[in-house]
């Protein structure tokens, strides 16, 4: 699978971006606000189309897929966890109406949502209010992640989807995710170094360009921007 995105000449959001993500790999994107991380991952489910260049999945240009089939392959978990009025079950089945109860429970388990769901009055049949407003931000985010897992996609895109989770839930979730879902490709956009430092490949973006690519250790050595971001989040001892 390989992606190419060079963009429109007048005001390019992303310029000459090329990278490959293999099945089973985790690729992470980091960079300052407005660097184009979100725009980049939004191109994959064709929320927008590239201006020039190509994005390929299994060697086929994504514009050649039926858009419905393409989106079925992708579990996109957006920044803002948007849930709907209805039961938790209905929300989890949002992208896969035929999912069995076992699948829902497994997804909730991976997303670290089982605990709080079982504490709710009616468990999985508990009603969510408009936009899920009767849940905390972290709970909404975990349900949104579980909803993505229920879809059983080939490619996962986490667009800053761990932001409302505390560090330990974030870690537990990612560990379970990688353990349970071995052969899917995962693309993670994040702000926290902790969330992505163990990714197979980290791509550092700045003003729409790739300025660094590699593992945490490699980037710490040879990417100034990455080092700066890490320095602002980690203490001195942890940097070494």
């Amino acid at each position: 699978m390989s992606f190419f995105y060079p963009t429109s000449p007048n005001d390019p959001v992303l310029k000459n971006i090329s990278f490959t993500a293999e099945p089973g790999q985790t690729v992470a994107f980091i960079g300052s606000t407005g660097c184009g991380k979100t725009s980049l991952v939004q191109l994959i489910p064709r929320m927008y189309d590239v201006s020039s260049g190509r994005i390929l999945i299994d060697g086929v240009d994504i514009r050649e897929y039926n858009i419905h089939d393409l989106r079925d392959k992708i579990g996109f978990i957006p920044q803002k966890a948007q849930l709907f009025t209805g039961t938790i079950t209905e929300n989890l089945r949002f992208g896969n109406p035929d999912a069995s109860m076992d699948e829902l429970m497994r997804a909730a388990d991976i997303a670290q949502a089982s605990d709080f769901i079982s504490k709710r009055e009616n468990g999985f049949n508990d009603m969510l209010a408009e936009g899920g407003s009767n849940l905390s931000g972290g709970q909404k985010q975990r349900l949104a992640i579980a909803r993505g897992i229920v879809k059983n996609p080939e490619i996962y895109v986490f667009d800053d989807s761990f932001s409302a989770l505390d560090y330990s839930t974030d870690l537990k979730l990612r560990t379970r995710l990688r353990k349970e879902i071995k052969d899917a490709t995962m693309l993670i956009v994040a702000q926290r170094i902790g969330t992505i430092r163990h990714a197979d490949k980290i791509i550092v973006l700045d003003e729409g360009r790739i300025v660094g690519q590699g593992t945490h250790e490699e980037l710490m050595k040879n990417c100034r921007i990455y080092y700066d971001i890490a320095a602002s989040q980690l203490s001195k001892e942890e940097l070494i």
Partner: protein
Amino acid sequence: MNNNNHRLRKAGKLIEISMSPYKNKFFIALFLQFFGAVLGTLNPFIIGFATTELGKNVTDIAQGKPGAAVNLSYIAVIVAILGVSAVVRQCATYTASFLTSGCVQDSFRDLRSKISDKINKIPVSYYDRNQLGFILSCLTNDVDAVSNAMQQSLMPLIYAVTNLIMTFVMMLVISVPLGLVCLILLPCSFFISRFLMKKSQGQFRKMQNTLAELNGYIQERYTGFTVIKLYNNEEDTINKFEEINGRMNKAGFKSGFISSLISPAIEFLINILYAVMILITGYSVLSGNMTLGNMQAFVTYIWLIFEPMNQITQLAAPIQSATASMERIVNFLEEDEEPDEEGKSSKLDLSKFEGNVNFRNVKFSYSDSEPVIADLSFEAKSGQKIAIVGATGAGKTTIINLLMRFYDIDEGDITIDGTSIYAIRRNNERALFGMVLQDAWLYHNTIAENIRFGRLNATDEEVIEAAKTANVDHFIRTMPGGYDMMINEEGSNVSLGQKQLITIARAILANPHILILDEATSSVDTRLEMLIQSAMNRAMEGRTSFVIAHRLSTIRDADLILVLDSGDIVEQGTHNELLEKNGVYAKLYNSQFADQDE
């Protein structure tokens, strides 16, 4: 039936609430309308005198009586009376509608402000329980439906009812037995229309409720548009929409169809009555028991019954839909408010304010079921920085909700400088706090006004000073229009981090005694993060501050860290103390550096 009375009681209550300041004007309008209707009904009877006279004259002429001629002067008097009555009647009804328009519009202006007041008095939990679309629909569609009904239907309805009653009175005056026959037939048509109306009323209510549901659904689905696309849920969304739309269609059709049945049914009855009455009165005139003019007046009255009855049934539709709306408005207005606290002391002695906040054995649950907080105690000393950390759902936000009295505790006490927060009026207690929330909230106005929201009487210089302290002055100056730049309605033309800086400036300007900060977890780049951090530190200087902390730097230099787990404080102390303990906090703190595969 019971339900109906209930609704009428509510509708009456609403009219009472909204109309009482305009009582006098309203009653004058009512009286004028009534007076106009009485005059209108007298017309056929007066014309009858002319007909009788003419009939007599014509018979006299035909019989060749000496001096027989049409009595023109008598007829001229009748015409003059009719002319004057018409002018007076028009004046009365015009004045009446002029007065009603005025007081209906004024009273609905008042009603809207009442609802808006109410919105501010309702506890936060109400909004957690109800769909936004439903509340919006109550504010807009329902108020509109009621004001239209009052404006366009109320006065004609009064006219029609008076007209109807007067018509019967006049029929009885002309002939008691015939009038009574008509009076017996009236309930007949009344029951038919009442039966149909009842049927359609249920459908009307259904239609209005479905409309509110549809609005809520549309709003939610548009907000979640991206997710629907990404999860291929378009079909489901459309199906569900069509299902609700279909229900609304059905209810609308039924209510429309049933209420359209009412007037033809009544028309049919009246026509039969008319034919029968012509036969009977014609016979009476021939046998000399009735004057010609009275017969003419009587049959005209039968026709005249038709109009007000028709009008009443037609006006019933908007009024029915209005009573359903009225019920919802009254229900909203009767929703429990945060309890009134007139009796409590309004003043806190701010000159001696120190800012010692104390939680003592606090117990709290959102619903009556499981306690969210079982037994919570801690003390924040004046000027300290308290960091609250814990896993998601551990109850961090709940502590803030309790401190701000958005929810009340079940047991225990919360004190500020030794005074229980429940001994002070809610508003005064809240005024002590400044808040910077994770979802930075800006409204549709200039940046300067958004900052000034913290303290409405602040000068431009103070606004700029606050912006400088919050590290946002430079950014604002680089925006088109600077401090006068409009924030758009969604607040999406500035970035999340910048929004947060603006809300920090707002809090700094407000200069609260106690500051509450809910740190944004991420979505902010490194440079902005440092700006926010230093702005927050400056904002917290010299006052007791509570921070729901996500950033390590905040946690590290806090005076007190509260580690929450399932609503209880499992550990408290400074960063170093807690690390030494090597307990929950140490685990939480270290987890971000831990190896993923361990």
